[in-house]
């Protein structure tokens, strides 16, 4: 095994694999910063170019590109409040307020260093966990996977401090949106309005861009100034962010491990890791009042989990051939192009390729963070550009990002509709993340439910782990109400300081449920 481990390292630094990794890194850097144009689209575009490559070269190129997008996506999230990737939206919640406060450098330093730590933890997990993870994942059945999906939604909805009911409604709407299209079991057209476009369902990217990017651009236009409201400290701010990563090392490491674990679970490994990590950061903090207003721990958690999940994603993809995300599904295509069959072979005769994946993640993330730190001041200056020059650029980016999903104008219409919905949600204090999460999890949840009912009838509801997950979900929903009740009993009243979590302002919480 040690031979394969070392051979994997050497093969990454051989030419042309190393050159291709740098090329992938450059492309990933650009793609990650451009909102909407995500890793999945780029992987799909680049896949045809890997036919002539060896396995290590192909993965150096593709995985190198992918690893970078997870990190650089945080940059636009922090600087513009626009998620560079759908998987970096959670960084906005505290990263963008920090930028507005003039702490863009510190937020970026924290995001980048926590990303590096997360990536290293994820890579280590990939190397260490493969031999033991198989029985763990295989012990879970479809009922447990269904409940895990529901737990994810309940968890995020419950974080909409004081607006749990709205969070659940938003989650329900997200799940309902995922139903649009042809029913995978019976072929029935559901909510398609007779339009061919809707047969494939509502795409995540236009919805995410609409919900998150358009309200921010409108706010930018309304204010009419640059994003930064104060001057940003230069390197001092950045190093403060780096120090924060190690000052709050517990949050960083725990969120890295959380991201790795979530990344291993099929369907949960994409956007969800960041939200769960954010939730964990909030829940484990003694002082929650600054979350949502620019608490650096709200940047560290999602940053670490977002990168560590890639290692987790690869575990199930490599070991079982089960892609956890769309991106991994495309990467699975690269495995097949290279004549590699995921499964036992990847742990035996192709073990060096598996270990090369580990090293690619490590090396590209170190390079990425180093490059980002070198050019951070230039990136931070972007926030000083006046709004008039930023707005048309951002409009074009979100338009192109939405369009590239399916290369159709209907995606732009969907984006505009959800832009209006997103703006209304912002103004009225409705949480947006549960809606996106519902859309992400919907199809998968339905499949799990269908398989559970088909295989176990309604008996699946009595499975021990399902019951445990149900109890946790119920606890997640009712705990905030219990906490509020307890606070009232203590005489603190409803008007005390409350955390602003997941886009719902604290003040919106009282007195509504």
């Amino acid at each position, binding site marked *: 095994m040690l031979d394969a481990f070392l051979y994997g390292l050497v093969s990454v630094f051989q030419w042309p694999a190393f050159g291709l990794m740098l090329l992938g890194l450059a492309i990933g850097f*650009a793609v990650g910063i451009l909102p909407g144009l995500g890793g999945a689209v780029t992987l799909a*575009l680049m896949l045809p170019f890997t036919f002539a490559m060896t396995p290590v070269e192909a993965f150096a190129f593709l995985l190198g590109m992918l690893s970078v997008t997870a990190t650089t996506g945080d940059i636009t999230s922090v600087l513009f409040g626009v998620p560079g990737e759908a998987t970096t939206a959670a960084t906005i919640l505290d990263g*963008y*307020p920090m930028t*507005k*406060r003039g702490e863009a450098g510190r937020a970026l330093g924290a995001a980048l260093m926590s990303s590096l730590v997360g990536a290293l933890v994820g890579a280590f997990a990939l190397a260490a966990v493969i031999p033991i993870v198989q029985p763990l994942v295989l012990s879970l059945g479809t009922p447990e996977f269904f409940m895990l999906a529901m737990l994810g939604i309940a968890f995020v909805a419950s974080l909409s401090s004081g607006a749990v*009911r709205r969070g*659940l*409604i938003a989650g*329900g*709407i997200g*799940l*309902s949106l995922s*139903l649009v299209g042809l*029913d995978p*079991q*019976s072929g*029935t057209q*559901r*909510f398609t309005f007779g339009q061919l476009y809707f047969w494939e369902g509502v795409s995540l990217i236009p919805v995410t861009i609409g919900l998150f990017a358009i309200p921010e*651009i*409108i706010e930018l*236009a*309304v204010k009419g100034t640059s994003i930064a409201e104060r001057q940003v400290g230069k390197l001092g701010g950045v190093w403060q962010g780096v120090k924060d990563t190690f000052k709050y090392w517990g949050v960083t490491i725990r969120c890295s491990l959380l991201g790795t674990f979530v990344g291993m679970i099929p369907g949960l490994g994409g956007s969800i890791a960041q939200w769960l990590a954010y939730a964990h950061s909030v829940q484990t903090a003694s002082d929650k009042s600054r979350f*949502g*207003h*620019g608490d650096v721990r709200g940047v560290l958690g999602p940053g670490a989990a977002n990168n560590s999940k890639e290692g987790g994603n690869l575990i199930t993809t490599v070991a079982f051939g089960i892609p956890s995300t769309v991106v991994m599904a495309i990467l699975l295509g690269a495995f097949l192009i290279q004549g590699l069959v995921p499964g036992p072979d990847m742990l035996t005769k192709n073990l060096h390729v598996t270990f090369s994946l580990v090293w690619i993640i490590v090396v590209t993330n170190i390079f990425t963070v180093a490059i980002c730190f070198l050019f951070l001041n230039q990136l931070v200056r972007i926030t000083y550009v006046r709004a*008039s*020059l930023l707005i*048309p650029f951002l*409009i*074009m980016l979100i*338009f*192109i990002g939405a*369009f*590239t999903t399916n*290369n159709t104008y209907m995606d732009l219409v969907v984006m*505009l509709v959800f*832009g*209006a919905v997103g*703006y209304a949600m*912002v*103004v*009225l*204090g*409705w949480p947006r993340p549960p809606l996106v999460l519902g859309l992400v999890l919907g199809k998968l*949840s*339905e499949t799990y*439910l*269908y398989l559970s*009912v088909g295989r176990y009838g309604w008996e699946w509801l009595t499975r021990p782990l399902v019951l445990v997950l149900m109890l946790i979900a119920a606890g997640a929903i009712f705990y905030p109400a219990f906490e509020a009740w307890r606070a009232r009993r203590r005489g603190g009243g409803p008007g005390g300081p409350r955390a*602003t979590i997941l*886009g*719902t*302002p604290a*003040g*919106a919480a009282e*007195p*509504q*449920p």
Partner: protein
Amino acid sequence: MRTTWQRSEALFTLFIIVVVALALYTSRGWSQRAGLFPWIVLTPTLLLALWQLVDDVRGKTSPPTVVIGDEGEATELDTDLTSRDTARRGGILVAWIIGFFAIIWALGWGVGGGLASAAYLRLAWRESWRVSIIYGVVTFLFIEILFRELLNIPFDEGALLEALGITIRLRP
């Protein structure tokens, strides 16, 4: 209902109720196989939304006290984000976003994007002609070189230009 915010909140909840109710109504004829998950999702969502509306109408909900993400600005939303001036500026941008869409659809991504960007700068922000034109040209080149040439995104030529038989590209 006393404030603009509360009226808007109730209207938004009502909009959600109408959409969810219509979805539930549409799904009534589906087989159990196709309808099970939609019914499981839509029914509680509708009930929760109705509960929310009742609270909205009874005035039990209140507006957020701070603008999202605005550290330290305890600004009432019904006197800020819903103020006339703010609404006007937001409305102008929404109109421009729709305008971008229309221009790109008619003239294509490169030409339309460049033209819309330049027009936006000149008309909405009173930028100088020089800045606006340079910005428009850079946008055109950015789209054509990065997205069309390097990333091979299949942009169309725009409905109007196609109808006129005109093609404007860096490379034919």
